[in-house]
Protein backbone atom coordinates (compact mmCIF):
# COMPACT_ATOMS: atom_id res chain seq x y z
CA UNK A 1 0.00 0.00 0.00
CA UNK A 2 2.84 2.36 0.77
CA UNK A 3 4.29 2.25 -2.72
CA UNK A 4 1.04 3.44 -4.25
CA UNK A 5 1.38 6.75 -2.43
CA UNK A 6 4.29 7.81 -4.65
CA UNK A 7 2.13 8.15 -7.78
CA UNK A 8 -0.07 10.99 -6.55
CA UNK A 9 2.88 12.78 -4.99
CA UNK A 10 4.64 12.79 -8.35
CA UNK A 11 1.46 14.07 -10.04
CA UNK A 12 1.11 16.69 -7.33
CA UNK A 13 4.73 17.82 -7.67
CA UNK A 14 4.51 18.02 -11.48
CA UNK A 15 1.30 20.01 -11.21
CA UNK A 16 2.88 22.40 -8.74
CA UNK A 17 5.98 22.85 -10.94
CA UNK A 18 3.73 23.47 -13.94
CA UNK A 19 2.51 26.62 -12.21
CA UNK A 20 5.51 27.56 -10.15
CA UNK A 21 8.28 27.54 -12.78
CA UNK A 22 6.70 30.17 -15.07
CA UNK A 23 6.00 32.21 -11.98
CA UNK A 24 9.60 32.06 -10.80
CA UNK A 25 10.86 32.87 -14.28
CA UNK A 26 8.59 35.89 -14.41
CA UNK A 27 9.66 37.01 -10.95
CA UNK A 28 13.33 36.61 -11.75
CA UNK A 29 12.88 38.66 -14.95
CA UNK A 30 10.97 41.39 -13.11
CA UNK A 31 13.99 41.99 -10.86
CA UNK A 32 16.39 42.66 -13.74
CA UNK A 33 15.38 46.23 -14.65
CA UNK A 34 18.71 47.57 -13.38
CA UNK A 35 21.45 46.11 -15.47
CA UNK A 36 23.79 43.73 -13.64
CA UNK A 37 21.93 43.56 -10.33
CA UNK A 38 18.61 42.35 -8.92
CA UNK A 39 16.36 45.17 -7.70
CA UNK A 40 12.73 46.00 -7.04
CA UNK A 41 13.01 49.03 -9.31
CA UNK A 42 10.29 47.74 -11.68
CA UNK A 43 7.93 47.39 -8.72
CA UNK A 44 8.72 50.89 -7.52
CA UNK A 45 7.91 52.30 -10.97
CA UNK A 46 4.71 50.31 -11.32
CA UNK A 47 3.39 51.01 -7.83
CA UNK A 48 4.21 54.70 -8.21
CA UNK A 49 2.36 54.97 -11.53
CA UNK A 50 -0.87 56.96 -10.92
CA UNK A 51 -2.58 54.93 -13.66
CA UNK A 52 -1.82 51.77 -11.69
CA UNK A 53 -3.44 53.25 -8.60
CA UNK A 54 -6.42 54.57 -10.55
CA UNK A 55 -7.14 51.38 -12.52
CA UNK A 56 -6.58 49.11 -9.53
CA UNK A 57 -8.93 51.25 -7.43
CA UNK A 58 -11.52 51.29 -10.21
CA UNK A 59 -11.41 47.50 -10.60
CA UNK A 60 -11.59 46.99 -6.85
CA UNK A 61 -14.71 49.13 -6.64
CA UNK A 62 -16.31 47.24 -9.52
CA UNK A 63 -15.37 43.93 -7.93
CA UNK A 64 -17.11 44.91 -4.68
CA UNK A 65 -20.23 45.99 -6.57
CA UNK A 66 -20.16 42.72 -8.51
CA UNK A 67 -19.93 40.74 -5.28
CA UNK A 68 -22.89 42.54 -3.69
CA UNK A 69 -25.14 42.10 -6.72
CA UNK A 70 -23.99 38.51 -7.22
CA UNK A 71 -24.74 37.54 -3.62
CA UNK A 72 -28.20 39.13 -3.73
CA UNK A 73 -28.93 37.30 -6.97
CA UNK A 74 -27.44 33.92 -6.19
CA UNK A 75 -28.24 33.18 -2.54
CA UNK A 76 -32.05 33.37 -2.69
CA UNK A 77 -32.12 31.57 -6.04
CA UNK A 78 -29.88 28.71 -4.93
CA UNK A 79 -31.80 28.42 -1.66
CA UNK A 80 -35.21 28.27 -3.27
CA UNK A 81 -34.06 25.89 -5.96
CA UNK A 82 -32.67 23.53 -3.35
CA UNK A 83 -35.71 23.81 -1.12
CA UNK A 84 -38.68 23.86 -3.43
CA UNK A 85 -37.69 23.22 -7.01
CA UNK A 86 -34.95 20.59 -7.03
CA UNK A 87 -36.15 19.57 -10.47
CA UNK A 88 -35.10 22.99 -11.80
CA UNK A 89 -31.58 22.48 -10.53
CA UNK A 90 -30.10 21.10 -13.79
CA UNK A 91 -31.69 23.99 -15.70
CA UNK A 92 -30.23 26.57 -13.35
CA UNK A 93 -26.87 24.86 -13.34
CA UNK A 94 -26.98 24.97 -17.11
CA UNK A 95 -27.74 28.70 -17.08
CA UNK A 96 -24.99 29.46 -14.58
CA UNK A 97 -22.53 27.60 -16.78
CA UNK A 98 -23.44 29.60 -19.88
CA UNK A 99 -21.06 32.52 -19.14
CA UNK A 100 -18.19 30.05 -19.10
CA UNK A 101 -18.83 29.01 -22.66
CA UNK A 102 -20.35 32.07 -24.25
CA UNK A 103 -17.23 34.01 -25.11
CA UNK A 104 -17.14 37.33 -23.32
CA UNK A 105 -16.95 38.93 -26.72
CA UNK A 106 -20.41 37.61 -27.63
CA UNK A 107 -21.91 38.93 -24.42
CA UNK A 108 -20.40 42.35 -24.96
CA UNK A 109 -21.64 42.51 -28.53
CA UNK A 110 -25.09 41.68 -27.27
CA UNK A 111 -24.87 44.40 -24.61
CA UNK A 112 -23.62 46.96 -27.06
CA UNK A 113 -26.47 46.20 -29.47
CA UNK A 114 -29.03 46.24 -26.70
CA UNK A 115 -27.97 49.22 -24.69
CA UNK A 116 -26.54 51.54 -27.35
CA UNK A 117 -27.43 55.19 -27.15
CA UNK A 118 -30.46 54.83 -29.44
CA UNK A 119 -32.05 51.96 -27.47
CA UNK A 120 -34.67 52.05 -24.72
CA UNK A 121 -32.00 51.63 -22.04
CA UNK A 122 -29.09 53.75 -23.33
CA UNK A 123 -26.57 52.41 -20.84
CA UNK A 124 -23.52 53.11 -22.99
CA UNK A 125 -24.39 56.79 -23.30
CA UNK A 126 -22.62 57.93 -20.11
CA UNK A 127 -19.56 56.66 -18.18
CA UNK A 128 -21.68 56.01 -15.12
CA UNK A 129 -24.17 53.79 -16.93
CA UNK A 130 -21.38 52.05 -18.83
CA UNK A 131 -19.85 51.21 -15.46
CA UNK A 132 -23.20 49.70 -14.53
CA UNK A 133 -23.20 47.70 -17.73
CA UNK A 134 -19.67 46.46 -17.05
CA UNK A 135 -20.68 45.48 -13.52
CA UNK A 136 -23.55 43.42 -14.90
CA UNK A 137 -21.15 41.82 -17.32
CA UNK A 138 -18.88 40.91 -14.42
CA UNK A 139 -21.83 39.53 -12.46
CA UNK A 140 -22.55 37.28 -15.42
CA UNK A 141 -18.92 36.26 -15.64
CA UNK A 142 -18.69 35.48 -11.92
CA UNK A 143 -22.07 33.76 -11.77
CA UNK A 144 -20.79 30.19 -12.24
CA UNK A 145 -18.30 30.48 -9.39
CA UNK A 146 -20.63 32.28 -7.04
CA UNK A 147 -23.46 29.84 -7.72
CA UNK A 148 -21.26 26.77 -7.33
CA UNK A 149 -19.79 28.03 -4.07
CA UNK A 150 -23.17 28.91 -2.56
CA UNK A 151 -24.83 25.74 -3.84
CA UNK A 152 -22.05 23.56 -2.39
CA UNK A 153 -22.34 25.42 0.91
CA UNK A 154 -26.09 24.92 1.00
CA UNK A 155 -25.82 21.24 0.16
CA UNK A 156 -23.40 20.66 3.00
CA UNK A 157 -25.92 21.70 5.65
CA UNK A 158 -29.13 19.91 4.59
CA UNK A 159 -30.99 23.16 3.99
CA UNK A 160 -34.30 21.46 3.66
CA UNK A 161 -34.43 19.82 7.06
CA UNK A 162 -32.94 22.86 8.80
CA UNK A 163 -35.59 25.06 7.19
CA UNK A 164 -38.33 22.67 8.22
CA UNK A 165 -36.98 22.50 11.76
CA UNK A 166 -36.95 26.31 11.98
CA UNK A 167 -40.41 26.53 10.43
CA UNK A 168 -41.90 24.06 12.88
CA UNK A 169 -40.42 26.19 15.68
CA UNK A 170 -42.48 29.11 14.38
CA UNK A 171 -39.81 30.97 12.39
CA UNK A 172 -40.74 32.99 9.31
CA UNK A 173 -38.69 33.44 6.13
CA UNK A 174 -36.48 36.35 7.18
CA UNK A 175 -35.54 34.64 10.44
CA UNK A 176 -34.80 31.36 8.68
CA UNK A 177 -32.67 33.04 6.04
CA UNK A 178 -30.68 35.35 8.31
CA UNK A 179 -30.44 33.31 11.51
CA UNK A 180 -30.27 29.75 10.23
CA UNK A 181 -29.17 29.60 6.60
CA UNK A 182 -26.77 32.51 6.09
CA UNK A 183 -24.60 31.92 9.18
CA UNK A 184 -24.02 28.37 7.98
CA UNK A 185 -23.01 29.30 4.42
CA UNK A 186 -20.98 32.36 5.43
CA UNK A 187 -17.70 30.73 4.49
CA UNK A 188 -19.07 29.50 1.15
CA UNK A 189 -20.21 33.05 0.43
CA UNK A 190 -16.79 34.47 1.30
CA UNK A 191 -15.10 31.91 -0.89
CA UNK A 192 -17.38 32.86 -3.82
CA UNK A 193 -16.73 36.55 -3.12
CA UNK A 194 -12.94 36.23 -3.19
CA UNK A 195 -13.06 34.21 -6.37
CA UNK A 196 -15.22 36.92 -7.92
CA UNK A 197 -12.76 39.57 -6.77
CA UNK A 198 -9.85 37.75 -8.34
CA UNK A 199 -11.70 37.30 -11.63
CA UNK A 200 -12.78 40.93 -11.89
CA UNK A 201 -9.29 42.24 -11.11
CA UNK A 202 -7.78 40.20 -13.95
CA UNK A 203 -10.53 40.59 -16.57
CA UNK A 204 -9.49 42.21 -19.85
CA UNK A 205 -11.90 41.65 -22.76
CA UNK A 206 -15.07 43.27 -21.44
CA UNK A 207 -13.36 46.29 -19.91
CA UNK A 208 -11.40 46.87 -23.11
CA UNK A 209 -14.42 46.55 -25.40
CA UNK A 210 -16.48 48.91 -23.24
CA UNK A 211 -13.44 51.19 -22.99
CA UNK A 212 -13.34 51.52 -19.19
CA UNK A 213 -10.17 52.35 -17.18
CA UNK A 214 -9.88 48.94 -15.49
CA UNK A 215 -6.81 47.07 -14.31
CA UNK A 216 -6.92 44.40 -17.06
CA UNK A 217 -6.50 46.81 -20.00
CA UNK A 218 -3.79 48.71 -18.06
CA UNK A 219 -1.96 45.40 -17.61
CA UNK A 220 -2.12 44.80 -21.35
CA UNK A 221 -1.06 48.33 -22.18
CA UNK A 222 2.03 48.06 -20.02
CA UNK A 223 2.65 44.59 -21.40
CA UNK A 224 2.70 45.86 -24.95
CA UNK A 225 5.00 48.84 -24.31
CA UNK A 226 7.46 47.99 -21.53
CA UNK A 227 9.97 45.22 -20.88
CA UNK A 228 10.34 44.61 -17.13
CA UNK A 229 7.30 46.38 -15.65
CA UNK A 230 4.78 43.86 -17.08
CA UNK A 231 6.53 41.08 -15.23
CA UNK A 232 6.34 43.06 -12.02
CA UNK A 233 2.65 43.75 -12.64
CA UNK A 234 2.00 40.08 -13.34
CA UNK A 235 3.66 39.19 -10.06
CA UNK A 236 1.60 41.82 -8.23
CA UNK A 237 -1.60 40.57 -9.84
CA UNK A 238 -0.61 37.06 -8.91
CA UNK A 239 -0.08 37.98 -5.27
CA UNK A 240 -3.39 39.82 -5.07
CA UNK A 241 -5.23 36.76 -6.39
CA UNK A 242 -3.07 34.50 -4.28
CA UNK A 243 -4.05 36.44 -1.18
CA UNK A 244 -7.69 36.03 -2.17
CA UNK A 245 -7.24 32.29 -2.61
CA UNK A 246 -5.45 32.06 0.71
CA UNK A 247 -8.39 33.75 2.37
CA UNK A 248 -10.73 31.23 0.70
CA UNK A 249 -8.71 28.42 2.21
CA UNK A 250 -8.73 30.02 5.65
CA UNK A 251 -12.48 30.58 5.61
CA UNK A 252 -13.16 27.24 3.95
CA UNK A 253 -11.21 25.48 6.68
CA UNK A 254 -12.94 27.43 9.42
CA UNK A 255 -16.29 26.30 8.11
CA UNK A 256 -15.23 22.70 7.92
CA UNK A 257 -13.98 22.81 11.49
CA UNK A 258 -17.37 23.94 12.71
CA UNK A 259 -19.43 21.46 10.71
CA UNK A 260 -20.57 18.14 12.14
CA UNK A 261 -19.20 16.09 9.21
CA UNK A 262 -15.59 16.33 10.26
CA UNK A 263 -15.99 14.77 13.66
Amino acid at each position, binding site marked *: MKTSKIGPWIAFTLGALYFIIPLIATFEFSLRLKRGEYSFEAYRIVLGDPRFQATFGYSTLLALATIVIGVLLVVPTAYWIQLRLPKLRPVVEFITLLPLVIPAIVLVFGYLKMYNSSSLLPLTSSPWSTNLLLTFGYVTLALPYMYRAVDTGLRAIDVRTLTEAAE*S*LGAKWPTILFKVILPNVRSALLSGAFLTFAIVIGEFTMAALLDRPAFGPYLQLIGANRAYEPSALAIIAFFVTWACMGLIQVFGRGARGASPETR
Partner: protein
Amino acid sequence: MSFLVIEALRKTFGQHAVVEHFDLAAERGEFVSFLGPSGCGKTTTLRMVAGFETPTAGRIRIDGRDVTGLRPNQRNVGMVFQSYALFPNMTVAQNVAFGLKVAGRSAAEIGPRVDEMLKLIKLPHLAERYPYQLSGGQQQRVALARAIAIKPQILLLDEPLSALDAKIRISLREEIKAVQRTLGITTIYVTHDQEEALSMSDRIVVMNEGKAEQIGTPFEIYNYPRTRFVASFVGTLNLLPGKVIDAAAGRIAIDGREVVSSRGLAGAQPGEIRTVALRPEAVTLNDPRADGNRMEGTIEDVAFLGSVVRIRVRFGESSISLDTFNNPSVQPPERGQAVTVCFAHADLQVLQDAA
Protein backbone atom coordinates in the same frame (compact mmCIF):
# COMPACT_ATOMS: atom_id res chain seq x y z
CA MET B 1 -64.20 15.50 19.96
CA SER B 2 -60.70 14.08 19.91
CA PHE B 3 -57.64 16.31 20.22
CA LEU B 4 -56.13 15.41 16.85
CA VAL B 5 -58.57 14.44 14.12
CA ILE B 6 -57.44 13.35 10.65
CA GLU B 7 -60.24 12.78 8.17
CA ALA B 8 -60.14 11.10 4.78
CA LEU B 9 -56.56 12.28 4.23
CA ARG B 10 -55.16 11.67 0.78
CA LYS B 11 -51.91 12.62 -0.93
CA THR B 12 -50.96 11.91 -4.51
CA PHE B 13 -47.74 12.68 -6.36
CA GLY B 14 -48.73 12.72 -10.01
CA GLN B 15 -50.69 9.52 -10.65
CA HIS B 16 -49.31 7.77 -7.59
CA ALA B 17 -51.36 7.82 -4.37
CA VAL B 18 -48.92 7.83 -1.44
CA VAL B 19 -51.60 8.11 1.27
CA GLU B 20 -55.27 7.19 0.88
CA HIS B 21 -58.40 6.99 3.05
CA PHE B 22 -56.45 7.85 6.17
CA ASP B 23 -58.57 8.51 9.28
CA LEU B 24 -57.34 8.90 12.83
CA ALA B 25 -58.65 10.37 16.06
CA ALA B 26 -56.06 10.74 18.81
CA GLU B 27 -56.87 11.85 22.36
CA ARG B 28 -55.02 14.52 24.30
CA GLY B 29 -51.79 13.04 25.70
CA GLU B 30 -51.94 9.93 23.57
CA PHE B 31 -48.80 8.38 22.04
CA VAL B 32 -49.65 7.11 18.56
CA SER B 33 -47.13 5.33 16.31
CA PHE B 34 -47.25 4.98 12.54
CA LEU B 35 -45.61 1.63 11.82
CA GLY B 36 -44.85 0.19 8.40
CA PRO B 37 -42.18 -0.68 5.83
CA SER B 38 -40.35 2.01 3.81
CA GLY B 39 -42.61 3.69 1.29
CA CYS B 40 -45.84 2.87 3.11
CA GLY B 41 -46.74 6.57 3.44
CA LYS B 42 -46.13 6.94 7.17
CA THR B 43 -43.65 9.80 6.86
CA THR B 44 -45.79 11.61 4.28
CA THR B 45 -48.76 11.45 6.66
CA LEU B 46 -46.65 12.87 9.47
CA ARG B 47 -45.39 15.65 7.19
CA MET B 48 -48.97 16.58 6.34
CA VAL B 49 -49.73 16.90 10.05
CA ALA B 50 -46.62 19.09 10.42
CA GLY B 51 -47.64 21.18 7.40
CA PHE B 52 -44.62 20.36 5.22
CA GLU B 53 -46.82 18.64 2.66
CA THR B 54 -50.21 19.87 1.49
CA PRO B 55 -52.86 17.13 1.43
CA THR B 56 -54.51 16.44 -1.92
CA ALA B 57 -57.77 15.93 -0.02
CA GLY B 58 -58.96 15.58 3.58
CA ARG B 59 -58.86 17.58 6.82
CA ILE B 60 -56.56 17.79 9.83
CA ARG B 61 -57.91 19.29 13.07
CA ILE B 62 -55.88 19.97 16.20
CA ASP B 63 -57.90 20.73 19.34
CA GLY B 64 -60.94 21.59 17.22
CA ARG B 65 -59.05 24.03 14.97
CA ASP B 66 -58.79 23.15 11.29
CA VAL B 67 -55.06 23.42 10.46
CA THR B 68 -55.17 21.83 6.99
CA GLY B 69 -54.36 25.08 5.20
CA LEU B 70 -51.99 26.54 7.80
CA ARG B 71 -48.26 26.89 7.27
CA PRO B 72 -45.95 24.88 9.55
CA ASN B 73 -44.99 27.98 11.55
CA GLN B 74 -48.64 28.65 12.38
CA ARG B 75 -49.42 25.17 13.71
CA ASN B 76 -47.53 25.01 17.00
CA VAL B 77 -46.20 21.50 16.45
CA GLY B 78 -42.85 20.23 17.67
CA MET B 79 -40.88 18.18 15.17
CA VAL B 80 -37.95 15.81 15.67
CA PHE B 81 -36.12 14.59 12.56
CA GLN B 82 -34.13 11.46 11.84
CA SER B 83 -31.08 13.59 11.00
CA TYR B 84 -31.41 15.66 14.24
CA ALA B 85 -31.40 18.91 12.22
CA LEU B 86 -29.78 20.95 14.98
CA PHE B 87 -28.65 24.40 13.84
CA PRO B 88 -24.86 23.97 13.45
CA ASN B 89 -24.11 27.63 14.15
CA MET B 90 -25.80 27.65 17.55
CA THR B 91 -24.90 26.11 20.90
CA VAL B 92 -27.13 23.57 22.56
CA ALA B 93 -28.74 26.28 24.68
CA GLN B 94 -29.25 28.55 21.66
CA ASN B 95 -30.83 25.69 19.75
CA VAL B 96 -33.27 25.02 22.56
CA ALA B 97 -34.00 28.72 22.94
CA PHE B 98 -34.58 29.29 19.20
CA GLY B 99 -38.33 28.68 19.16
CA LEU B 100 -38.84 30.80 22.26
CA LYS B 101 -36.86 33.69 20.80
CA VAL B 102 -38.84 33.49 17.58
CA ALA B 103 -42.02 33.66 19.63
CA GLY B 104 -40.69 36.88 21.20
CA ARG B 105 -40.41 35.66 24.78
CA SER B 106 -38.31 37.71 27.19
CA ALA B 107 -34.81 36.64 28.17
CA ALA B 108 -36.07 36.29 31.77
CA GLU B 109 -38.51 33.68 30.57
CA ILE B 110 -36.25 31.91 28.06
CA GLY B 111 -33.32 31.24 30.43
CA PRO B 112 -35.20 29.19 33.03
CA ARG B 113 -37.20 27.35 30.34
CA VAL B 114 -33.97 26.29 28.55
CA ASP B 115 -32.48 25.13 31.86
CA GLU B 116 -35.61 23.16 32.59
CA MET B 117 -35.53 21.48 29.17
CA LEU B 118 -31.85 20.59 29.45
CA LYS B 119 -32.49 19.11 32.87
CA LEU B 120 -35.37 17.09 31.42
CA ILE B 121 -33.08 15.52 28.80
CA LYS B 122 -30.29 15.17 31.37
CA LEU B 123 -27.75 17.29 29.52
CA PRO B 124 -27.59 20.52 31.56
CA HIS B 125 -23.77 20.38 31.53
CA LEU B 126 -23.62 20.57 27.71
CA ALA B 127 -25.50 23.85 27.29
CA GLU B 128 -22.52 25.68 25.77
CA ARG B 129 -21.41 22.92 23.40
CA TYR B 130 -21.98 23.02 19.66
CA PRO B 131 -23.89 20.20 17.94
CA TYR B 132 -20.80 18.78 16.23
CA GLN B 133 -19.26 18.24 19.67
CA LEU B 134 -22.07 15.88 20.71
CA SER B 135 -22.72 12.20 20.03
CA GLY B 136 -25.70 11.23 17.87
CA GLY B 137 -27.75 10.25 20.89
CA GLN B 138 -27.03 13.54 22.63
CA GLN B 139 -27.88 15.52 19.50
CA GLN B 140 -31.22 13.79 19.23
CA ARG B 141 -31.99 14.53 22.88
CA VAL B 142 -31.23 18.21 22.24
CA ALA B 143 -33.50 18.10 19.19
CA LEU B 144 -36.24 16.72 21.44
CA ALA B 145 -35.67 19.48 24.00
CA ARG B 146 -35.79 22.10 21.24
CA ALA B 147 -39.08 20.70 19.94
CA ILE B 148 -40.83 20.61 23.32
CA ALA B 149 -39.42 23.92 24.62
CA ILE B 150 -42.10 25.82 22.70
CA LYS B 151 -44.84 23.79 24.44
CA PRO B 152 -46.24 22.48 21.16
CA GLN B 153 -49.76 21.11 21.00
CA ILE B 154 -48.46 18.03 19.25
CA LEU B 155 -45.04 16.41 19.15
CA LEU B 156 -44.07 14.71 15.89
CA LEU B 157 -41.11 12.33 15.65
CA ASP B 158 -39.92 11.04 12.28
CA GLU B 159 -37.86 7.87 12.83
CA PRO B 160 -35.83 9.69 15.47
CA LEU B 161 -33.77 6.63 16.43
CA SER B 162 -32.97 5.13 13.02
CA ALA B 163 -29.55 6.74 12.74
CA LEU B 164 -28.36 5.51 16.15
CA ASP B 165 -26.63 2.41 17.44
CA ALA B 166 -28.78 -0.46 18.74
CA LYS B 167 -27.87 0.06 22.38
CA ILE B 168 -28.48 3.83 22.35
CA ARG B 169 -31.72 3.27 20.46
CA ILE B 170 -33.15 1.27 23.34
CA SER B 171 -32.11 3.67 26.10
CA LEU B 172 -33.27 6.71 24.12
CA ARG B 173 -36.64 5.16 23.41
CA GLU B 174 -37.22 4.80 27.12
CA GLU B 175 -36.15 8.40 27.65
CA ILE B 176 -38.43 9.78 24.94
CA LYS B 177 -41.33 7.81 26.39
CA ALA B 178 -40.58 9.12 29.90
CA VAL B 179 -40.42 12.75 28.71
CA GLN B 180 -43.65 12.32 26.76
CA ARG B 181 -45.39 10.86 29.82
CA THR B 182 -44.06 13.56 32.12
CA LEU B 183 -45.34 16.34 29.88
CA GLY B 184 -48.51 14.54 28.81
CA ILE B 185 -47.96 15.77 25.27
CA THR B 186 -49.92 14.29 22.36
CA THR B 187 -47.35 12.51 20.18
CA ILE B 188 -47.08 10.92 16.76
CA TYR B 189 -44.10 8.67 16.25
CA VAL B 190 -43.09 7.28 12.87
CA THR B 191 -41.02 4.10 12.79
CA HIS B 192 -40.33 0.94 10.80
CA ASP B 193 -39.26 -0.92 13.92
CA GLN B 194 -42.06 -3.00 15.41
CA GLU B 195 -40.39 -3.27 18.80
CA GLU B 196 -40.15 0.53 19.06
CA ALA B 197 -43.80 0.92 18.16
CA LEU B 198 -44.97 -1.87 20.47
CA SER B 199 -42.98 -0.71 23.48
CA MET B 200 -43.69 3.03 23.31
CA SER B 201 -47.19 3.49 21.94
CA ASP B 202 -50.63 3.82 23.44
CA ARG B 203 -51.93 2.99 19.98
CA ILE B 204 -50.30 1.86 16.75
CA VAL B 205 -51.40 2.58 13.19
CA VAL B 206 -49.98 -0.20 11.02
CA MET B 207 -49.62 1.19 7.49
CA ASN B 208 -49.15 -0.56 4.19
CA GLU B 209 -49.17 0.95 0.70
CA GLY B 210 -50.63 4.26 1.85
CA LYS B 211 -53.47 2.81 3.89
CA ALA B 212 -53.96 2.20 7.60
CA GLU B 213 -54.29 -1.58 7.81
CA GLN B 214 -55.14 -1.65 11.50
CA ILE B 215 -55.32 0.82 14.39
CA GLY B 216 -55.15 -0.52 17.92
CA THR B 217 -53.19 -0.89 21.16
CA PRO B 218 -49.89 -2.79 20.94
CA PHE B 219 -51.63 -5.68 22.71
CA GLU B 220 -54.44 -5.76 20.13
CA ILE B 221 -52.15 -5.34 17.14
CA TYR B 222 -49.81 -8.07 18.29
CA ASN B 223 -52.35 -10.59 19.54
CA TYR B 224 -55.29 -9.91 17.22
CA PRO B 225 -53.87 -8.80 13.85
CA ARG B 226 -56.75 -8.19 11.50
CA THR B 227 -54.93 -8.75 8.21
CA ARG B 228 -52.22 -11.09 7.04
CA PHE B 229 -49.92 -8.11 6.47
CA VAL B 230 -50.24 -6.95 10.08
CA ALA B 231 -49.76 -10.50 11.34
CA SER B 232 -46.55 -10.94 9.40
CA PHE B 233 -45.16 -7.42 9.87
CA VAL B 234 -45.73 -7.23 13.62
CA GLY B 235 -44.11 -10.07 15.52
CA THR B 236 -42.99 -13.43 14.27
CA LEU B 237 -46.03 -15.59 13.76
CA ASN B 238 -45.74 -19.22 12.69
CA LEU B 239 -47.93 -19.67 9.61
CA LEU B 240 -48.57 -23.31 8.65
CA PRO B 241 -50.85 -25.07 6.18
CA GLY B 242 -53.41 -27.27 7.98
CA LYS B 243 -55.81 -29.80 6.50
CA VAL B 244 -59.27 -29.62 8.09
CA ILE B 245 -60.45 -32.93 9.57
CA ASP B 246 -63.55 -31.98 11.55
CA ALA B 247 -64.54 -28.31 11.57
CA ALA B 248 -67.09 -28.61 14.40
CA ALA B 249 -64.57 -30.21 16.79
CA GLY B 250 -61.78 -27.90 15.57
CA ARG B 251 -59.68 -30.86 14.48
CA ILE B 252 -57.05 -30.11 11.85
CA ALA B 253 -53.91 -31.90 10.60
CA ILE B 254 -50.54 -30.17 10.34
CA ASP B 255 -48.13 -32.20 8.29
CA GLY B 256 -50.12 -35.37 9.11
CA ARG B 257 -50.20 -34.69 12.86
CA GLU B 258 -53.65 -33.99 14.29
CA VAL B 259 -54.12 -30.92 16.50
CA VAL B 260 -57.14 -29.12 17.93
CA SER B 261 -58.07 -25.44 17.79
CA SER B 262 -60.71 -24.06 20.10
CA ARG B 263 -60.90 -20.80 18.18
CA GLY B 264 -63.38 -21.72 15.48
CA LEU B 265 -63.15 -23.34 12.14
CA ALA B 266 -66.66 -22.26 11.10
CA GLY B 267 -67.76 -23.33 7.65
CA ALA B 268 -64.61 -25.24 6.74
CA GLN B 269 -65.05 -28.44 4.75
CA PRO B 270 -63.12 -31.59 5.69
CA GLY B 271 -60.04 -31.90 3.49
CA GLU B 272 -59.83 -28.14 2.92
CA ILE B 273 -56.42 -26.51 3.43
CA ARG B 274 -56.39 -23.57 5.87
CA THR B 275 -53.55 -21.43 7.22
CA VAL B 276 -53.08 -21.84 10.95
CA ALA B 277 -51.20 -19.26 13.01
CA LEU B 278 -49.29 -19.80 16.23
CA ARG B 279 -47.31 -17.27 18.31
CA PRO B 280 -43.79 -18.49 19.14
CA GLU B 281 -44.23 -17.62 22.83
CA ALA B 282 -47.40 -19.79 23.08
CA VAL B 283 -45.37 -22.92 22.42
CA THR B 284 -43.42 -24.81 25.08
CA LEU B 285 -40.88 -27.59 24.76
CA ASN B 286 -41.11 -30.99 26.47
CA ASP B 287 -43.56 -29.65 29.07
CA PRO B 288 -44.97 -32.65 30.95
CA ARG B 289 -47.66 -30.53 32.63
CA ALA B 290 -49.11 -29.10 29.44
CA ASP B 291 -52.42 -30.41 28.30
CA GLY B 292 -53.44 -29.50 24.78
CA ASN B 293 -51.70 -30.12 21.48
CA ARG B 294 -48.46 -32.08 21.32
CA MET B 295 -46.30 -32.60 18.24
CA GLU B 296 -43.02 -34.45 17.93
CA GLY B 297 -40.22 -33.06 15.79
CA THR B 298 -36.53 -32.29 15.51
CA ILE B 299 -34.73 -29.09 16.45
CA GLU B 300 -33.57 -27.42 13.23
CA ASP B 301 -32.15 -24.16 14.53
CA VAL B 302 -31.41 -22.45 17.84
CA ALA B 303 -31.02 -18.67 17.96
CA PHE B 304 -29.88 -17.15 21.22
CA LEU B 305 -31.44 -13.67 21.30
CA GLY B 306 -30.45 -12.73 24.84
CA SER B 307 -33.21 -13.10 27.39
CA VAL B 308 -35.10 -15.22 24.86
CA VAL B 309 -33.89 -18.33 23.03
CA ARG B 310 -35.75 -18.91 19.75
CA ILE B 311 -35.88 -22.57 18.67
CA ARG B 312 -37.14 -23.82 15.32
CA VAL B 313 -38.57 -27.34 15.30
CA ARG B 314 -39.12 -29.19 12.03
CA PHE B 315 -41.94 -31.65 11.25
CA GLY B 316 -41.56 -33.04 7.72
CA GLU B 317 -42.63 -30.14 5.50
CA SER B 318 -43.42 -27.54 8.15
CA SER B 319 -41.54 -25.96 11.00
CA ILE B 320 -42.58 -24.09 14.15
CA SER B 321 -40.56 -21.40 15.92
CA LEU B 322 -40.93 -21.18 19.67
CA ASP B 323 -39.51 -18.85 22.31
CA THR B 324 -38.12 -19.91 25.66
CA PHE B 325 -36.46 -17.77 28.30
CA ASN B 326 -32.72 -18.08 28.67
CA ASN B 327 -31.74 -20.05 31.76
CA PRO B 328 -28.13 -19.55 32.85
CA SER B 329 -27.96 -22.98 34.42
CA VAL B 330 -29.16 -24.86 31.32
CA GLN B 331 -27.37 -24.79 27.96
CA PRO B 332 -29.74 -24.18 25.03
CA PRO B 333 -30.70 -27.41 23.24
CA GLU B 334 -28.62 -28.68 20.32
CA ARG B 335 -29.63 -28.81 16.68
CA GLY B 336 -30.86 -32.28 15.67
CA GLN B 337 -32.32 -33.13 19.07
CA ALA B 338 -35.78 -34.81 19.07
CA VAL B 339 -38.35 -32.82 21.06
CA THR B 340 -42.07 -32.54 21.76
CA VAL B 341 -43.69 -29.13 21.28
CA CYS B 342 -46.79 -28.32 23.29
CA PHE B 343 -49.37 -25.58 22.86
CA ALA B 344 -52.88 -24.91 24.15
CA HIS B 345 -55.97 -25.49 21.99
CA ALA B 346 -56.87 -21.81 22.44
CA ASP B 347 -53.56 -20.58 21.00
CA LEU B 348 -54.00 -22.17 17.60
CA GLN B 349 -55.68 -19.60 15.32
CA VAL B 350 -57.14 -20.64 12.00
CA LEU B 351 -57.03 -17.74 9.54
CA GLN B 352 -60.06 -16.98 7.38
CA ASP B 353 -58.30 -16.81 4.01
CA ALA B 354 -57.54 -20.05 2.20
CA ALA B 355 -53.88 -21.00 2.30
